[in-house]
């Protein structure tokens, strides 16, 4: 994988440099994808002339809803292109504008995680940052999340930082949630799931959200049994418009800001349960306390 940052401030710069990046892709027989808004799609398509329609277009607003979903969607797209015969994929992508520094922190962490998440894919990714739209501080942070810089040529990024360290620094500290009640843990896992489903039904949780929560809790329980010295407690309850579950184990916990963010491969051993739990829930938080690890799940 190659992951490069492209900073620009004019349409013409974008059309010329990214047009060339994609054209080189046609020449080497790569699959090409652009994830941009409709205006820039048109701009780049025009710049490519007759070849413009060879590039798969994905609308960036719909694609970048949550980092977890964007990672999974890219992984699926890349797997499909490779399965369908592409030797390499060239991808140009731009985040849509976000509100406020907190949102940008999430997506800066996302850009860091990309370096690990797609490391096994034969892909060259160029991320465009338009200085007319993106705050200067964000552009500066992105120097740390991209190992390469694209200008006239590709060069190494001197400011590149370790993705795990950066993701940890950017992760918001999980806050304890009040008002959750313990769920009886006696019996088989399937019985615990039924109890939890009954609780969610009486709390009017939408069926699809309840299905997602059951799977996520199941994976957290499985991890607690396998790695965490057993389950200490399962708590659940409504928190405003959301339903929250906490699975607490008796283990030492762990400190890995990338846990559950990396798509599984055929060789994956650990971390797949957390990946699944992150994918199906709205939010997953890991909190190591003196008593053990707590996995907090939101739907």
């Amino acid at each position: 994988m190659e992951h490069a940052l492209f900073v620009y401030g004019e349409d013409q710069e974008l059309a010329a440099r990214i047009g060339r990046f994609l054209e080189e892709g046609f020449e080497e027989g790569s699959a090409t994808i652009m994830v941009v808004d409709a205006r820039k799609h048109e701009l780049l398509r025009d710049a490519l002339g007759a070849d413009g329609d060879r590039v798969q277009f994905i609308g960036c607003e719909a694609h970048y809803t949550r980092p977890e979903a964007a990672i999974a969607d890219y992984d699926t797209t890349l797997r499909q292109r490779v399965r369908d015969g592409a030797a390499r994929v060239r991808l140009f992508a731009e985040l849509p504008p976000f509100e406020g520094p907190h949102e940008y922190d999430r997506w800066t962490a996302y850009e860091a995680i990309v370096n690990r998440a797609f490391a096994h894919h034969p892909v060259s990714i160029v991320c465009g940052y338009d200085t007319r739209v993106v705050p200067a501080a964000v552009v500066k942070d992105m120097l740390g999340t991209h190992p390469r810089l694209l200008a006239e040529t590709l060069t190494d990024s001197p400011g590149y930082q370790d993705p795990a360290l950066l993701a940890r620094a950017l992760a918001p500290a999980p806050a304890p949630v009040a008002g959750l009640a313990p769920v009886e843990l006696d019996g088989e896992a399937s019985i615990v799931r039924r109890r939890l489903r009954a609780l969610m039904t009486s709390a009017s949780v939408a069926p699809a959200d309840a299905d997602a929560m059951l799977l996520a809790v199941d994976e957290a329980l499985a991890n607690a049994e396998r790695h965490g010295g057993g389950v200490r407690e399962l708590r659940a309850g409504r928190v405003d418009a959301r339903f929250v579950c906490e699975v607490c184990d008796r283990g030492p916990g762990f400190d890995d800001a990338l846990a559950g963010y990396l798509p599984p491969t055929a060789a994956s051993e650990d971390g797949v349960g957390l990946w699944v739990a992150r994918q199906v829930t709205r939010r997953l938080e890991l909190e190591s306390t003196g008593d053990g690890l707590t996995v907090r799940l939101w739907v």
Partner: protein
Amino acid sequence: MSSVHNPSRSLEFGVVSVAGRRTLQGDHVTIDEPDVAVVVRPGEHACCRFAHAQDRLQVASAFVRDALARGHKVVYLCDGEDLDASAGALAGGHDDVAAALASGQFELRLARATYAPDGRFDIERVLVAIREDRERALADGYPALSITGEMAWARPHVPGSERLSEYERRFAEAMEGGEIVALCQYAHGEFEPATLAEVAGSHEVDLSPELAPLARTQCLIGARVDGGRTLRLAGELDFACADALATVLDGHFHDPLQLDLADLSYVDVAGMRAIRRHTGRPLTIAGASVSVRRMLGLLAWDTDPEVEVLA
């Protein structure tokens, strides 16, 4: 027909869900039993060859309760003389069974009285009787007849019992056209192995003895279909029962593994790993439930050339 109660249906998975025991204490619901998992589909002719009476009782009880929830007329043919005791064992404390007995939706009969009323097993006579049962059930407004029989009466000294496998073969032909679900219970060890093998071959669905450990997990059940080549799983495959499945697969199934997972209402990561212990070997999934499909994508098996998912 007002007595036929509405089954609670889980539309998402296209299967009927039969709730385990729920006890109401004040406004607090206690759930202490798993849901019922059934591996036999409407219109199918199945046999259960589990060795232990307890294993067969569990499968039979699940079959009866699932059929009742679907609104079928249910007929149970018992080997033992004490029908009340059999009914109690099948109900296992569930009110739905007792209510169906009272309404006539559920009937228990002596197996010998149906199969060999005068001490002689006459295939034609039995097939006519069961067809009549089906006609009566439909006339009474039931959508189908679910029938299950304990086959212990068919011991070698019963005249006509040597035609058992012929009967089973002809049953399948005679009942073609749906509206009947049948589960024939053969105790492994009470019949000649050759007879049992032949009998199993006459059923579309075979709950063969080596699959009993799956049912003992209380949340999963398995059967051989497609002439024994495909393993069909129903119920919930989670981290708690994944090891039991892995052991059964290790001991009794050879690659390429072919699975029918259309009735698997739930599966987690550990469950998916149990069905695919070794990468590098082909796996065919004929029929994937919503839950399985979701997991195929999440685990990146949907683009894996080793995993074939049939439509």
